[in-house]
């Protein structure tokens, strides 16, 4: 046991003991609580409140109303961060061409089982994404569940099969950009309509407020759609699942193709 080893272990133990002692002695606030915070009381009372329609979001699911209506700006920036990571990964793989190769995949038993399971996973993902404003669920959840199917097809069949059924890199990137465009369109539609009609309106507005009398409807033929939350959920599910598919294709390109592209890059420089 060298001296460096010992110092690291002692420092870790001191960190653990000090932090947990501080939290148990209620230095960072009382734990566990009997009343929630005042901000959370406001969110819980006003997420679905037909008696006070000017500050309500008309969404039965409180977490969705916080993410897309009361704190919608945070979610917009987080989507931008995810987009930047995908673009940075695509930049690392510039100039790589996927050539056709023969690949066998796994045995026929696994292939038949995958053919039965993949449509059920896609149906569950769509159901979770569309019901995001009524039950726990939403855009990220549905998109992540749908991304598992890309991984399944990639592992049991081959990368070439994925290209053959129409999921090449360019098409996935185009679909993801379409999802992001519809996200931005949903966030500024009330503002644009207000500008055209001469009424005051805000960006990311969901329902009609005290100072602006224009807003999206929360009910359509007796179905509850909660204004902009529904459209946000659908566009986010599309964008997230396509992003994951793109990532898997990048990671699993054959090594010979990437080495060839690297050599070509070094010859140019």
């Amino acid at each position: 046991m060298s001296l460096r080893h010992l110092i690291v272990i002692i420092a870790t133990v001191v960190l653990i003991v000090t932090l947990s002692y501080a939290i148990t002695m209620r230095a960072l606030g009382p734990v566990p609580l009997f009343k929630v915070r005042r901000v959370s009381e406001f969110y819980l009372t006003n997420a679905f409140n037909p008696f006070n329609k000017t500050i309500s979001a008309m969404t039965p699911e409180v977490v969705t109303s916080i993410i897309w209506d009361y704190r919608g700006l945070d979610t917009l920036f987080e989507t931008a961060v995810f987009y930047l990571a995908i673009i940075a990964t695509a930049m690392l793989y510039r100039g790589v061409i996927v050539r056709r190769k023969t690949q066998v995949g796994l045995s026929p038993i696994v292939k038949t089982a995958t053919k039965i399971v993949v449509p059920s996973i896609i149906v569950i993902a769509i159901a979770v994404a569309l019901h995001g404003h009524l039950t726990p669920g939403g855009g990220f959840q549905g998109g992540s569940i749908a991304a598992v199917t890309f991984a399944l097809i990639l592992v049991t069949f081959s990368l070439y099969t994925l290209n053959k059924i129409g999921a090449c890199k360019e098409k996935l990137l185009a679909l993801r950009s379409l999802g992001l465009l519809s996200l931005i369109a949903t966030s500024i539609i009330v503002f644009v309509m207000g500008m055209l009609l001469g009424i005051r309106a805000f960006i990311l507005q969901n329902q009609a407020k005290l100072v602006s009398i224009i807003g999206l409807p929360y009910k359509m033929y007796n179905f509850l759609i909660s204004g902009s939350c529904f459209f946000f959920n659908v566009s986010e599910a599309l964008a997230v699942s396509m992003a994951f598919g793109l990532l898997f294709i990048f990671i699993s390109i054959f090594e010979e193709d990437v080495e060839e592209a690297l050599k070509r890059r070094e010859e140019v420089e």
Partner: protein
Amino acid sequence: MMGLFILFVSCVVSILALVATYLAIVERDLLKAILYSAIQSTLFAFLYYILIAPDIVLVYIPVAIGLYPLLMVIVVKKSERFEKP
């Protein structure tokens, strides 16, 4: 007393997760380390369910049990498998 029973079960689950992460960090064969980390993620998903956070469970199960081990196994397959001491 059901509110206290929830806290008791989450205590037990978090101690098991502590054991699993110690095994994951100390292990030298990287495939086994990925497996222990997936066990720890499963225990955490159960912990989120017990502590009544349904939205988080629906994100955590595809992301931390499905996608992270998949990415890691592809990287290990394309580079080295054993870690030098």
